[in-house]
Structures are given as C-alpha cells and as structure tokens.
C-alpha cells in the first residue's frame, strides 16, 4: 500500500538511519526583553522516535517548538536539522525541510472543508504556477489529482471520511484536532511537532488521538516531538521525555527515569523554598 511506500520514503530521503540524531539543539537561549523563556537548553531528537517535552505552565515548551520550526530566533545556540546547522530560519524554510506542526489552539481555515484544509497542507508540494492552476487543465489537473490521492490516503488513515466535505468550523473540537493533524501529515514531514494534541479532549478522544500518533510514528515512520500535559499519555507514548521548568532543562530520559527524578517531582508538586 501507499502508506508503506511513504514510510519507506521517509526513512530514505535524508539518508539518516533510524535511531540516529535527526535534530540537534545546542545551548539554546531565548529571551523576550527581560523574560528568559529558554536558558541554555540542549537536547536531541532521534529519527523514528516519539520525543515528549513536558513541564509546568510557562516552562518554555511551546517556545521550544517555535524555535525548532523557525518561528522564534534564539539569541544564542545552534540548531542542526538533518546534519545542517542553522542560526536563522523562517517557518516556511522549516516546512520545506520537512518540519510540520499542529497548534495548541486549533488553527484551521474554519470556512473551508476538511478536504480543502488538508489539501492546503500540500501547497508546498505543488509546482504548477497560479495561471495553470486557474486553468485547471493539463499538468495542473494531473498535479491536483496526484495530491488529492495523497490527501485521500490521509483521510483514510485518520478515518475522517464522513467529514470530508464538512466545513471544519462545524466540527467538534476533537475532530478539528484530527483534521489539523491531517494537514500536518499532508506535508509528509520528517519531523512532526505536536503542541498539546490532546488538550481539552475527553478520554475517548484522547485514546483515539494516541492511537493516531502511534500509527503515524510506526506506519508512516514520522519522527514526532510532542508537548503534552496529560502525564498518562506522555508516559505511554513517548520513547524519551525532556522536562523543562522555568526555561531550564531539569531532566531528560526514558519515561521511567523521568518519573523517578526528584527534580521533576518537585517542579510539578512544588517544594518549600
């Protein structure tokens, strides 16, 4: 099936072996005026893993994701993705390199249908110019059909056939989250950043979403970095967990190691100072 070929493609396109470093973050610091959002944090994401970033509110988790996909530019430190170092990068460059993301607050085009939203995720892969697309003939039509096939595979993968033609604004929150994941997948990313994919969901929706995250990882071979508050979810899904607190890294390791770490327990439960 095509899902498999996608997985194979994801593994071979950049020549990085499974388990090798895909993304490297060295001594990053980010501040807004006097606020130090991230202070001297280093970590890595290995190809094929699910990497969780956790921490209390305001710990700098979303800032870290924004740094990775080029939305924020850290004052210090180096990021290397697929072995290439970079200091400044714009979000669209990140997207072109294979980094896709979803947002903490759903950011879809609410007036457009599920299909159109996911199709929008393909725009970077479309090569025909505006005029061809206006004509909607010949190469542009073929291209559209090609992309539609990929989008349909994603719709099938996420089991959202029933809402294919529904404007996303009419959908319940849990489904909107799924559509957003679909749009990110449409980019066929190497690295997928999920910002609280389960926030505001009920138990059943969380279970569904967890399954999709695992499936994306195992079937499509996509490397995933996720921020999540639900500890149960994180401990079940993640291969490795990094814990931030007040912009500093306080722990990094397997879920079991992190759970047993005293600094983490203190950060979450609070300690008398």
């Amino acid at each position: 099936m095509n899902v498999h070929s996608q997985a194979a493609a994801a593994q071979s396109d950049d020549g990085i072996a499974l388990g090798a470093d895909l993304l490297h973050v060295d001594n990053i610091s980010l501040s807004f005026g006097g606020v130090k959002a991230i202070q001297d944090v280093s970590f890595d994401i290995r190809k094929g893993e699910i990497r969780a970033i956790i921490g209390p509110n305001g710990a700098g988790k979303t800032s870290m994701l924004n740094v990775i996909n080029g939305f924020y530019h850290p004052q210090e430190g180096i990021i290397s993705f697929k072995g290439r170092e970079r200091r400044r990068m714009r979000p669209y460059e990140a997207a072109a390199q294979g980094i896709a993301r979803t947002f903490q607050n759903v950011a879809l085009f609410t007036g457009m249908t599920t299909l159109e939203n996911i199709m929008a995720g393909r725009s970077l892969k479309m090569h025909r110019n505006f005029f061809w697309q206006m004509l909607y003939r010949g190469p542009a039509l073929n291209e559209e059909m090609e992309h539609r096939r990929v989008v349909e595979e994603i719709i099938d993968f996420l089991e959202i056939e029933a809402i294919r033609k529904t404007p996303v604004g009419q959908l319940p929150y849990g489904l909107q989250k799924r559509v957003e994941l679909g749009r990110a997948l449409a980019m066929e990313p190497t690295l997928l950043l999920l910002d609280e994919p389960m926030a505001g969901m009920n138990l059943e929706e969380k279970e569904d979403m967890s399954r999709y995250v695992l499936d994306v990882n195992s079937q499509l071979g996509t490397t995933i970095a996720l921020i999540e508050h639900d500890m149960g979810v994180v401990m079940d899904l993640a291969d490795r967990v990094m814990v931030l607190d007040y912009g500093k890294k306080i722990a990094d390791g397997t879920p079991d190691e992190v759970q047993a770490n005293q600094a983490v327990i203190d950060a979450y439960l609070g300690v008398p100072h």
Partner: protein
Amino acid sequence: MAVAEDRSATGLSTFPQYLLLNAERFGSRVAMRHKDFGIWQSWSWAEQLDQVRRFSLGLKQMGLKPGQKVALIGANRPRLYWTFCAVQAIGGVPVPLYSDSVAEEMAYVLEHAEAVFAVCQDQEQVDKVLSMGEALTHLDQIIYDEPRGLRDYDQDHLHSFEQVQAMGRKALEDPKVGEDWVAGIGKGKGGDLAVMLYTSGTTGRPKGVMLSYENLVVSARNANAFDSFDQNEQVIAYLPIAWVGDHVFSYAQAYVAGYCVCCPESAETTDQDRREIAPTYFFAPPRVFETLLTAILVRMEDAGRIKRAMFNYFMDHARRVGERILNGERVGVLDRLLNWFGEILVYGPLKNRMGLTRMQVGYTAGEAIGPEIFRFYRSLGLNLKQLYGQTEASVYVTAQPDGEIRPDTVGRPSPDVEIEIDKSGEVLYRSPGVFVGYYKNDEATKSTKDKNGWVRTGDAGFFDHEGHLKIIDRAKDVGKMKDGSLFAPKYIENKLKFFPNIKEVVAFGDERDFCAVFLNIDLTSVGNWAERNNISYASYQELASHPEVYAMMEEHVDQVNRDLSGEDMMAGSQIHRFLVLHKELDADDGELTRTQKVRRSFIAERYGELIDALYDGSEHKFVETEVTFEDGRKGSISADVIIRDAKVYPVAEEASRQEAAE
C-alpha cells in the same frame, strides 16, 4: 433472449454456479462497488469471478477442505463478500460473525462452529481473534483484508488477502487447476450446506442456523420475482454481514439476479454514500427511516420562511393524495398537477437528500414502524413496504405486495410459504426456505421445527379481513383475559406509543376482566403543547395530572379503542380504564431496562396499589413512590393519581350487522 437466460439460470443450484453464469451473461456489468479513497471503485462480474477464483484457490492451497468452516468477521467489504463465494466454491461453509460482538461471544461462535480459518477485515478484528488464544482449538489460520497496523505481528498464522490470492494465482498457472475448480463448482448440489448464520437470540447462547443452497436460492429467486428485480438493481450493503437479511439482499438475491452491490466507505458515511449510489432497492429497519425523517424535520425548522411554507404546503398535499397516486387509485387532474409541481419543488429534492431518488422498492422490518413515519415516505411516492422474516426462513415469511400496503400489517405469505396460526395464537410457517437445522443442537431444532417442516416463529399474530398477517407480540408474552379473548400487551402499548404525546405505556389484562393501562406523557412533546396553549405547570407531576392533559390522553385512548374494535381478534382488549402516572418511568428506578424497555413484572409489584385501583373502580388513588435521583440519593414523591374510564366500542362487524338489521 431473456427467456433463454432464465432457463439457464433456473438450472443452477449454488452461488458459485451463479457466479460462473453471471461472469458469462453479465461479464462487463458492474457486480460490486466500494468507495475507497473517496472514489467509487468497481468490479465487473468477470473481475469478481477472477477475484473469487484466486482467493478460493489460495484457500485451497492453504489446506481448506470441503465441509470445513471459515469465519468472516468485519464490515461490508467486497473482499468479505467474495470470501463467501470463494469458500463455497471449494465446498467450505462460510460463517459470518457480528463484528461488534465482544471477544468472548466471538470465541463461543468460532469454537462452536469449529471454524478453521478466519477472514478478518482489519487489525481490530484480528486482535479480537488473537486475544482468544488457546480457547480456539480449531482455528488454524487468520487472513486479513486491511494490513494497517499488522506489519509487526507474528506472521506464522497470519496472511494478507493479497498473499492468499497470490498463492491462488500461482496455482492457476497450471491450466488444469482452473478447470478442476470449475468442475468442482459444477458438482455442487442444492441440498448442500451453504452458510451458517448465528442468531443473537435474546436468551441463551447463539444458535447456528444452517441454510442450504436450496433454501437461499429458491427464496432469492421467489423474492426477485415478487418485486421484479433484475440485473439492473443497485443496493447498498450496510447492515451486518452476519445478519440473514444482508446475506439474502446483498449476496443471495444479488447473485441470482446479477445485480450490483455497493459497499459504503465506512459506517459513518453510509448516508452520503447512499446519496451517491441512489439504490433502487433499499432495506432498513424502522429506526433508520425514523432518523432520516427526524433529520429532515429538524433541518426544515431551520429553513427559511419560503422553503418552510413550501414544504408544509406540499407535504399536506402529499398526505392527501400521494399515497393514493402510488397505489394507482383514481386522483383528480388538479391534484395530479399539484403533485407534479410538488415533485419538482419538494418531493424530488427531499428524495435526493435521503438518497432514495431511484428507489423502486423499499422494505422495512424487524419491529413496528410508526404509521406516521410509514405514510410520510409513501406519500412522497416511495414504494416502502413491510415484510416479516426470520433467519430460519431465509428471511421471507410474509411481504406486502404492491398496491396492498398497510402501515400495521406485514403482508401476505411470500411465494411458496404456507402459514398457520395455532391455538395459542403463535404463527407457524412452512416453505422451501426453511432451515436445515441448528448446528449441533438437535434439541432446539426439534422444538422449533416439527417433522412436517412447520417452524414456530415465537411470535403471535393473526390474519385480518384481507388476508394480511398482523404480528402482535412475542408469543410468550401473549396472555388471555378472563373471557378467553387474546391479550397482547405490546400490541396495545405500541398503538398508544405511536402518539408523540405518549412516551411509555404499560398495559394490564392477563387473567383480568378487562384491559387497563398506565400512561407516561412525553415531556418534550406535551410541554411544547402546553406552552403553545398557555397551560402553566411547575413540574412533570403537575403537567401529568392536568385535566387538559387527561382530556388529550382520553382522545388518544379513544382512538386506539376505535381501531381495536375494527379487529376481530383484538376487539376484546379495548382499554376500559387508564391513568397517567405521576412520574416518568426510569431505568434508575429499575422500571425500565437500560435499553429503555418496560420491566412489566417490576412495575406490577411497585405500583400494585394503582393496579388494584384500576380494577376496583375507584376514581383516584393516593400513592407514595420512592425515587432515585441521578446522584444516587433517594427521595419520595406522592400524588393523588386520577383514574379515568374510557369509552369502549362494540366489535365493528357486530355493529355493522346491527345496522343492517335495523
């Protein structure tokens, strides 16, 4: 030409034989459709033959022997339908299972049927089968349709559908294999076991109903002739494959007539997919028709003024003449003209929305359908009919012929079916479709089917003046009143429950002098009515005991009594007295089951005082009832419940005879 085809068709006795014939006579016609990746994929009969042949030979390579059972688990998918025929072609017996049943139920059926192979739709079903592990002593191999999520499984006993087909294709390189396969199909006989369908049954373990090719082929042939189905039909297969209805509509009848079966993309998209396919023949339980209608009425509420006015006007018109036009009765020119306009403006678009534009014949069965709902569809010009069937009969026992449609009967005996009603009122039938027996359960077979082939339905019913069968209740629930007349509580309750103002009814009358009922008002509907009529109320209890509400209920009861008086068998159970309960029957209080069915004996005990009051002639009764609130606290409510007498009518026939005498 058509005659020649028919003759060649009637000589056949098994579905694989029909497959070969259809590939020849309808080779390029579409046999199967499935929406996948947003596009309708289709397979012609010739392609279907190819798919079935490869899978069938693959199964043979894997060691499937004639007489062995193969379980089918999953939703309506082309590959599962092909599995039926592929298994049958090499003499095996397919056993479809309900895909939503839990692992333990599945284990029982798999083990009882001695299934050696299981063909599963996806990972979910494979997981269920694997989770039973050692409990399945016969199961040897599992084959799956959708590979998603199964890549990392231990593949020793697990094969994809493609892998099995590839084995078949390889075997086909030897031309003799293909010839032998066709020759083997030719040897199939009508008396052979075709399929085993497990009936869920309300009590005890499911029973495996064995149906022979003859049962299914003759039933399918009769049913196709009854409604003149041919190769041009399109149906949408969306009901469980383990259910006899789907097996007959989407497999047996399709193979015999050569028509096209369409599988929806997923269960949730069925409504949209039906719209795209526009089936010519559509079966649905009453629930589906109800939901469709409700969805439309809700949308109409939100529609603009002009649309709403148009809808109301033309629906009124349809109610007056639509059904008469459909029945071919005489209707005035003006009315016909209006109906034609209505078709363009309202009925046509409505049918399109529901995906019923091309529907020639629709059936509903399984339970009673509300007469209003039934009439709504018929008045749109949709030929919706009712049938009565059972797994043990290969579906058809009775069906309504065109032009003889009543909302409250299930029609005349189907072709070749004989029906008898025994002394207790139970319906018995005998037909070519009558099952061979229950698998490994002679005792149950004997108690259901006698040596002359008569089968007990377990349902009580009677024939009306026109020779239509009416089903009134489960035979075991039917009682007798003191004067010896039949008392069927559910029949009376259903009649009352069809009024939207009445939510629940409990009828009493077994071993009593007359029939009396408890009524529960429907708060939404009655509340709405109260609002419109400026009737103020503070609580459910107050509304329930309001004199105007009582007057309304009296009207409903009166209507039901008038109906009952027209039916010889049921006239004796007219409602003499009724009361409106001061509280809603509630599952939290144990009065209803969790599936919202009335628990008769419990209510009889709990409200014993009120029942006594119904029968001792008192006009009101003070009662105190304990209630459980949603948070688990208990309280009690007390009320002075009013009891009313209802008007009882003489039996209609007697009345008309009296009139004639005067």
